[in-house]
């Protein structure tokens, strides 16, 4: 937490500029993943839990790409990454606790 901020914030924050090429590459990846997830769910038959896991994994990869490149998370100070991790961990804990209750009834 110490590293961001404190003394001279009025100075403009250094800006990272993402190249169009990078953005396009990421976009292409996102489209491919979208097609993949549709294909996986419509053409193959997996066991239920595997299908859900796959769909969520692909979605999470996409989300990561969006956050990392489109939202510039990659270039943000470490503190931002920590915040995101904490928020996701928190949500995961909610999921785990609810799962424990509902699946051991």
């Amino acid at each position, binding site marked *: 937490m110490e590293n961001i901020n*404190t003394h001279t914030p009025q100075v403009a924050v250094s800006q990272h500029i993402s190249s169009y090429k990078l953005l396009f590459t990421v976009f292409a990846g996102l489209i491919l993943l979208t097609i993949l997830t549709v294909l996986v769910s419509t053409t193959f038959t997996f066991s239920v839990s595997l299908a859900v896991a796959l769909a969520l994994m692909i979605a999470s990869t996409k989300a990561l790409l969006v956050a990392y490149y489109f939202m510039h998370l990659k270039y943000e100070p470490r503190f931002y990454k920590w915040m995101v991790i904490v928020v996701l961990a928190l949500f995961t804990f909610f999921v785990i606790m609810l799962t*424990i209750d509902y699946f051991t009834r």
Partner: protein
Amino acid sequence: MTTTIAQPSYLEGKKGLFSWIFTLDHKRIALLYLYAIIAFFLVGMTLGLLMRLELLNPGKDLVEPTTYNQIFTLHGVIMIFLFIIPSIPAVFGNFFLPLMLGTDDVAFPKLNLLSWWLYVLGAVFALATLVFGDGPADTGWTFYAPYSVKTGTNVTMAVMAAFILGFSSILTGLNFIVTIHRLRTPGMGFNQMPLFAWGLYATSWIQLLATPVIGITLLMIVAERVFGIGLFDPSIGGDPVLYQHMFWIYSHPAVYIMALPAMGIVSEIIPTFAQRTIFGYKAIAYSSMAIAFIGYFVWGHHMFTSGMSGPAAIIFSVLTFLVAIPTAIKVFNWVATLYKGSIDVKPPLLYALAFIFNFLIGGLTGLVNGALAADIHVHDTYFVVGHFHYVMFGGTGFAFFGALHYWFPKIYGKLYNIRMANISFAIFFIGFQLLYFPMLVVGLMGMPRRYYDYLPQFHVPNVVSTVGSWILATGILMMIANLMVAYWKGKKARKNPWHGITLEWQTSSPPPLHNFDKMPEVNEKGPYHYKNAMDQ
């Protein structure tokens, strides 16, 4: 050296209603909150008093059952959403966070004003239930489905009120986090921050991350009422218990929204009146974060009798006990701070000590609630009612009034009558014990809460409790009167009447519009390093 042209104080600047209700100055916004919150507190307390009157004897004393149910719901909603959650952060956090950080405002002053307006809007919604629809909600402040979906009273509006107030709370939290990260004065790292700021920091994260969950849950209740069929309805495969999960995912962390700022206040008052550095600064600071974090994972302890699975119950119970540890650490450090201090017993310190005592009873009864077997017996009885009044009112409420007495000279530049403050404190304290201790007893005897009427064996404790409520009311009214007298004709207060050394004491009383005439000096050794006790 200090040949500054003194600016006018924030109270003197612009005059007129609009200069207040559209102000961007954090100090004026804080006062707007203060007046609104005290007003709602009095309304809530009047409702509490009515309940006690009704419960004086078994059978009907005063009101009809439905009215009683509406009264305790409104009492709960007002006390939780309009009083205790905003109380310390919105009033003293707004006023003193920027001062303590040595800066001139919060990060987003306009957002701050918006929060206040949302608060007012939410309050209007909450009170409008008195007039519109079929009267105020009669569900309890927990709005449990399916009753909250079935009842004819105006639940929709009450729930909307809570939703809007939630947003107000989120924005305050957001503002404080950014303020703390961005606006500390040069030389003040996180570990040079006053503990009140730490308390607010931990609180803000809870406000930010927990409140949206209840927001969405309450929207589901609204949708359910509007479409007449919905998500928690078992006849379509839904589960009413899921509502409870969603509700408590927010509402348990919310109890730490109430407690952490209060603990911050106590951590300010004790070193000032002991004139020595606080014992275990880091332990107190980090335990706030620990409470905030663990506090997210214990919500299930409100649902031990709901039919939750055994393994889930175990985990929630263990975690509940673990969340008590950081609190214990704080208590021990406060007491240790008194050791070898040079203690000046003034009203703020009395409130802080009373906080510790009451919070001990509240917290320790919380442990009874957290134990599975014991909670099966005491759940939804007056024991729980006693528990939460001890922590919320005995804890946070006392800390709120302690803070008011501590910072009153800074806020208004006036000093109150100390003797009167001590006397009203004593009456307040005694009334409090008489009012709430019998609740613990009658709860263990098995009297359920939210009862309009009760069996004859519960009579005696209820009488004691009601009598206590009158004594308490006397004390509070005396206290408020004393402060009002001080506001009109109190002696002028010095800049630093208690010899505190956090930054807010370095500016004049009341502070100038831009907070400081002179750059505040940060104490590199930490915010409570007293050089020599009496040299100010």
